[in-house]
């Protein structure tokens, strides 16, 4: 397996590529197979990762996030007043929209408004915001009613909806309606004529883009584009993708099925590695509104019955690419901690014994558990099968209902009884950037309100802690609150954290300087 340190290799490759500069007339095209087909283009509207990746090609954010999870200037430099009530953002020079008009502060105000209507955390932030206004062509000011900790983080965050900037005329498109054109200020231009929804998206280098001076780090720093054209292709079949990269038809596969890596190991022309260090966490969600999982004891039995290792082993196989941890924020993020690890201690058999014991002592009456299983999303097809088997062993009656991912997503939003199309349990996964702090984490909402993300757990203490986190002054304070939240999430069995896996990418050796990032980045890389 060719695992290596990208940064170290990147430096060496940078040197090499500057020597072997390509002839000016050869157009370089980088063809990539993305993990999912691109079907919609409005990065404010969709939380899908592929749309985010698309967003970062064409659009930019005011602030970027570096590999230390720190917000850094990108489109704008910022100052924060000492009372934490005034944020001043100054646009850097030379920013142009792809239609040739300059980027103005007014555009950005409109974009922030549209973004904040759609993104969950931004909505929370807006409760603390007094006003956002453009004070000049280059400057916009955010006035807060009261201090709110993570303003800069939100402006810089890469997930689930980054604060992308777009021209005012696009930003005024009402929420719910897709933007009619893809015009951003980013390093790539979107080629609308060659876009085939669900099949192909094409980007060309934005020749007018002026990168920042700082070195590139995640979405912060210089976005230097070294290829003329990037083509995203959708391939419904991983086998086909692997054949294609071996024959040189494509240069990059964003996410290779880990079981198939041995096929590429033999190939000298293809390298594999982890480009997104963040990975994704698999979560098994209870429906807290329906029996039997309205009973905390019954949920607890499940928490012991399920086994992170079996689940990840079956889904991923190669232990190099998965990690088991108690942290609900991701295994390697600043807020990660071991709180709740008691639920994972001991062997699977020991925990199964405990699960049986708890279940026997509970009021569980044999009500069948309806487990939803997606058939068309490879990453999530195995977990329900494995989980169902463990739960049955613990004494549950489990019915696995197979459906396509779209049906599952829709069905999860209803809490009617199972007989009327409801559900009890299902698995999903979250890019770590979508859960890495209590602000963005959807699964720990304890309000139990109808419009929260499916599952509807109710826990008053949880709500207090989440509110407190937003106004916490220091990193220590934040971490402490986050740990307490994590403890409750385990104790009150909000959901089962089934472990974390990394996406492995494969690329042909002609590619150099592939950037690591929270999403796949196409700047820096050369061919």
């Amino acid at each position, binding site marked *: 397996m060719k695992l290596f340190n990208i940064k170290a290799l990147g430096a060496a490759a940078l040197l090499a590529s500057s020597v072997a500069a390509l002839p000016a007339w050869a157009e370089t095209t980088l063809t990539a197979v993305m993990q999912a087909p691109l079907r919609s283009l409005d990065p404010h*509207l*969709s939380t*899908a990762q592929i*749309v985010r990746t698309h967003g970062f090609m064409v659009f930019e954010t005011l602030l970027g996030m570096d590999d230390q999870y720190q917000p850094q200037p990108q489109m704008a430099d910022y100052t924060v007043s000492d009372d934490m009530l005034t944020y001043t953002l100054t646009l850097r020079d030379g920013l142009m929209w792809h239609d040739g008009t300059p980027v103005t502060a007014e555009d950005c105000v409109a974009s922030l408004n549209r973004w904040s209507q759609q993104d969950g955390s931004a909505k929370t932030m807006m409760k603390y915001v007094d006003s956002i206004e453009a004070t000049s062509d280059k400057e916009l000011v955010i006035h807060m009613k009261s201090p709110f900790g993570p303003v800069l983080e939100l402006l810089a965050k890469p997930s689930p909806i980054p604060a992308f900037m777009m021209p005012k005329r696009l930003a005024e498109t009402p929420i719910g309606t897709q933007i*009619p054109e893809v015009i951003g200020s980013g390093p790539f231009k979107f080629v609308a004529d060659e876009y085939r929804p669900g099949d*192909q998206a094409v980007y060309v280098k934005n020749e007018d883009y002026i990168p920042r001076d700082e070195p590139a780090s995640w979405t912060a720093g210089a976005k230097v584009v070294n290829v003329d054209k990037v083509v995203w292709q959708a391939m419904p079949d991983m086998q086909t993708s692997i054949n294609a990269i071996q024959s040189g038809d494509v240069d990059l596969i964003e996410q290779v099925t880990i079981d198939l890596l041995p096929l590429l190991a033999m190939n000298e022309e293809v390298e594999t590695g982890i480009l997104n260090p963040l990975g994704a966490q698999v979560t098994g969600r209870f429906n807290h509104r329906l029996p039997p999982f309205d009973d905390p004891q019954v949920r607890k039995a499940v928490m012991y019955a399920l086994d992170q290792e079996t689940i990840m082993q079956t889904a991923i196989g190669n232990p190099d690419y998965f990690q088991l941890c108690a942290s609900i924020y991701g295994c390697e993020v600043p807020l990660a901690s071991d709180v709740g690890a008691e639920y994972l201690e001991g062997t699977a058999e020991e925990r199964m014994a405990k699960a049986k014991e708890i279940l026997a002592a509970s009021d569980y009456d044999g009500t069948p558990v309806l487990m939803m299983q997606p058939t068309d999303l490879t990453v999530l097809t195995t977990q329900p099968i494995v989980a169902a088997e463990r739960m049955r062993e613990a004494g549950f009656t489990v019915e696995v209902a197979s459906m396509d991912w779209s049906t599952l997503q*829709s069905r999860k939003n209803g809490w009617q009884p199972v007989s009327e199309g409801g559900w009890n349990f299902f698995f999903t996964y979250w890019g770590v950037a979508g859960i890495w702090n209590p602000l963005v984490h959807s699964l720990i909402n304890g309000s139990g309100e109808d*419009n929260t993300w499916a599952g509807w757990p109710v826990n008053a203490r949880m709500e207090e802690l989440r509110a407190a986190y937003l106004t916490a002054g220091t990193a220590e304070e934040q971490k402490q609150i986050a740990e307490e939240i994590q403890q409750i999430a385990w104790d009150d069995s909000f959901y089962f954290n089934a472990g974390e896996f990394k996406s492995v990418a494969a690329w042909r050796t002609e590619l150099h300087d592939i950037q690591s990032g929270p999403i796949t980045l196409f700047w820096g890389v050369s061919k």
Partner: protein
Amino acid sequence: MLTYFLRRLLMAIPVMFFVAVFVFLLLRLTPGDPAQAIAGDQASLDQLEQIRETLGLNEPLSVQFLTWIGNMAQGDFGRSLISDRPVLEMIGQRLGPTVALALVAMGLTLIIALPMGVLAAWRHGGMTDRLVMAVSVIGFSVPIFVIGYILIGIFAVNLRWFPVQGYKALADGLWPFVHRIFLPGLALASIYIALISRMTRASMLEVLREDYVRTARAKGLPESLVLFRHALRNAAIPILTVVGTGFAMMISGVVVTETVFNIPGLGRLVVDAVLARDYPLIQAIILLTAGTYVLINLLIDLSYALTDPRIRYQ
């Protein structure tokens, strides 16, 4: 002939209306939410509700249906819920590969299946006949995707004669086009070859018993003339009919073949559309394929007149 054509077109109206109602109800009475597909799985319920409202998905079904039918009558098939692009444009982008694939498969079928069927009927009961029947029954029995994978395994991965996947339009040059479309065309043709060779054989067997074939032989004509001029033309109508009804079978094959060989055609578009609940797109594709089916079969009916002078449509 024109009158007949018009009459058949008139008859197609209730057929297409049935299809429209059927498809519409099928889609709307089943679970799934396009708003979710637009917003992604991390979207909140508020967000979804807003999208549904904007898309008009909260209107009563009857209103939605009438709006849809009304727009379609004006040639407006609507926009994709997911990509927000005109449905016809999306279909147009994907039409080329599918049509090319279907035509190539059909061409291969005719080149291979007709002589196979004629030969089998001519040597009825002999080794050739048994061989042809065996090939045909195997073609019926092995799923297209298995045939596809076997072809890829042998010709693309081992022998490296063909690329494993992908599609190039004819506009990119004849060789790249042929090079990439041959294997998928063959895989898709497999079941069709089975069907047409069988039908040709059966139809020829029947025709070869006819008096005029005996007459042709009594005239001392060469056997090739007897088979291809006298018999095959008379055997053509049932074969043509199967070509028409087989169009539906072809579509099934196209969906699978496009997946196996990664061809960006309509087949994949429709599977994606179904999985994403992109109602206007699904409706338009099904309606268009149904319309094409009706049209192809109408054209085939009309073509009977070309092969058989007795048929003069009133």
